[in-house]
């Protein structure tokens, strides 16, 4: 779960990471008042759950409350990468001597947290990583012992910092580690960490993604999730609340399956026969009839869908439950599109009987089913 910049900065503030003076505004008038209080040139920054806002015009600068008001009004009307801007962060604008990158995330292959530090921070950090990998220092962290002071210093040193600066950067890395641990983070970044001309270190931007599986121990975040604010689209969010994973795609064949790998393989099979998936939908393990029924509704809410491929391989998931779900859904489906069902595994026989009773055909082979669903769409088209 990705947090808004201002939420991430609240988490930073709690561990003492220095931040620019700031205020959060949801109207242009508030923006003006905050700018007046700050009494300095400001940046007006769109608060959205997506990257790339700078290039999309989501960050503007102003020297006066009037200019800030005007800029905020513009940004608050924007929708960036599909995300309407509801709030702007008004921040003291900083003079920049140097931009540093600090980040901590999880290295899947090492199964450990990894801390990353570079003296060449800023928006181009990924290019730096590609072209000058030696400018990016990394340190893998023992997940039981945590990041120790001496490791943070060594990391800062490996990134090219020396003397007092090395100690300061290490101190900030240790605080960022606190953010990482306290928030069950998958990722936390300061980019850029700004060094001002008078030698102060200030976190100009903040990123914090919290592990969805840990939300139960972060009550405040759970409440925000409850309020439906997230980086997902409406359908994605709806599926998520129902315990399913749904991702919208560009094609016209709806895909439903149980298990992410199987759904991907299903999409690949559809593509193999020349079709184009309209979505990815994983009903998850051990889904109920109701969930399958919901899944069909969600997939068919996408107007481009011309046929649906349901691929069930029963393990925890039971074919009879899935069959019942399909039948329930068909009674209330908004549109009548061909549905191709492939079903094998746990309680296959019972499922087959249920489908047979309702006169719904199904196949045993994923490959054959993929071929059939593509044919259905081609026939119609």
């Amino acid at each position, binding site marked *: 779960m990705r947090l808004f910049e201002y939420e991430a900065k609240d988490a930073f503030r709690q561990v003492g990471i220095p931040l620019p003076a700031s205020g959060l505004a949801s109207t242009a008038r508030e923006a003006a008042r905050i700018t007046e209080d700050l009494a300095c040139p400001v940046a007006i920054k769109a608060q959205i759950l997506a*990257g790339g806002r700078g290039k999309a015009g989501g960050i503007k600068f102003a020297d006066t409350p009037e200019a800030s008001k005007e800029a905020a009004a513009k940004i608050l009307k924007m929708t960036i990468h599909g995300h309407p801007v509801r709030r702007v962060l008004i921040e003291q604008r900083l003079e920049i001597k140097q931009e540093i990158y600090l*980040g*901590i*995330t*999880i*290295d*899947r*292959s090492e*199964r*450990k*947290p*990894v801390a*990353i530090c570079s003296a060449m921070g800023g928006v181009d*950090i*990924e290019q730096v*990583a590609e072209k000058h990998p030696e400018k*990016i220092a*990394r340190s893998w962290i*023992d*997940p*039981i012992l945590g990041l120790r002071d001496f490791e943070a210093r060594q990391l800062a040193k490996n990134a090219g910092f020396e003397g007092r600066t090395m100690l300061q950067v290490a101190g900030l890395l240790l605080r960022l580690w606190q953010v990482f*641990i306290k928030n*069950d983070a998958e*990722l936390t*970044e300061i*980019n850029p960490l700004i060094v001002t001309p008078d030698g102060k270190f200030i976190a100009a931007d903040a990123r914090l*993604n919290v*592990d*969805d*599986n*840990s939300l*139960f*121990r972060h009550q405040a975040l759970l409440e925000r999730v409850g309020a439906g604010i997230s*980086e997902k689209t409406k359908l994605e969010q709806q599926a998520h609340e129902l315990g399913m994973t749904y*991702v919208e*795609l560009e094609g016209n064949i709806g895909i439903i*399956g149980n*298990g*992410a*790998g*199987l759904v*991907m*393989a299903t*999409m*690949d099979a559809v*593509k*193999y026969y020349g079709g184009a*998936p309209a979505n*990815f939908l994983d009903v998850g*393990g*051990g889904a109920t009839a109701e969930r399958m029924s919901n899944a069909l509704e969600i997939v068919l809410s996408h107007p481009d869908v011309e046929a649906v491929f349901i691929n069930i*391989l*029963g*393990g*925890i998931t039971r074919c009879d439950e899935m069959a019942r779900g399909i039948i329930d859904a068909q009674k209330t489906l908004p549109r009548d599109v061909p549905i191709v069902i492939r079903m*094998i*595994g*746990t309680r296959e026989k019972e499922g087959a009987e249920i489908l047979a009773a309702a006169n719904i055909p199904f196949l045993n082979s*994923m*490959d054959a089913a993929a071929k059939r669903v593509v044919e259905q769409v081609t026939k119609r088209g």
Partner: protein
Amino acid sequence: MTILVDKTTKVIVQGITGREGHFHTKAMLDYGTTILAGTTPGKSGQEVEGIPVFDSVVEAKEQFPEINASIIFVPARFAADATYEALDAGLTIVSLITEHIPVHEEMRFIELARRQGSYIVGPNTPGIITPGQCKLGIMPAHVFKPGRVGLISRSGTLTYEVAASLTEAGFGQSTALGLGGDPIVGMSFVDALKLFEADDGTDATVLIGEIGGSAEEAAATYIKKHISKPVIAYIAGRTAPKGKRMGHAGAIVSGKTGTADGKIKALRKAGATVIDRPIDVDEALQKIL
């Protein structure tokens, strides 16, 4: 003759009194798995399918010191503790079925397992099966048959898909295991390949990967250097959209790894046969064996 589990494996089911725990205890018993005990804290003294329930793994081990493997059905909030408990009791195989475990806990118990040389299969895995001998998982058993092909997969249902194809084509499996669907899992392709390479009951290994992470790339590197037996690989997600980026850090850490194309190229370069569809596994094996 097989890897990780066989007919000598002595199992404890953690979370045996729960719905899933109970259901799969019965299924595993039906399959012939030797289950000696179960745990649910606070329910010591009960029985599930004739298996005695204990408050803790340690207490079960006092009565059944021969227990060496665990399968965990404990709900996500308590599953990490169950895993610590299994490791602390010295169990060497932990099949961790539970999904949605906090990733920070996963990193910790995987590190502990690494230190003591225990295997954690999962989390979020269908488990391990050595057909005809031991099922330490939740997979539909009938798609598996005894044989000489090793099967390793990151995906649950896709494992069954490929197993079914193999079985149908007459290729039984020595052992099949799901590594687990979480970003962080205990056992890796490399760990499993190493075991299959050393196992004289395995002639070839089928590796089922998917996009994301760099486990397949690591496997390719390992295959090239250390694996003499044939490897057939299928990578799911060629047509899947790029996942959402995990900040700059994600890009820095993963670099160019993670795409289906990259994984396929790496595996081909390492000498593996990469197939386009699960059903192609039959033909590929026919050519090799």
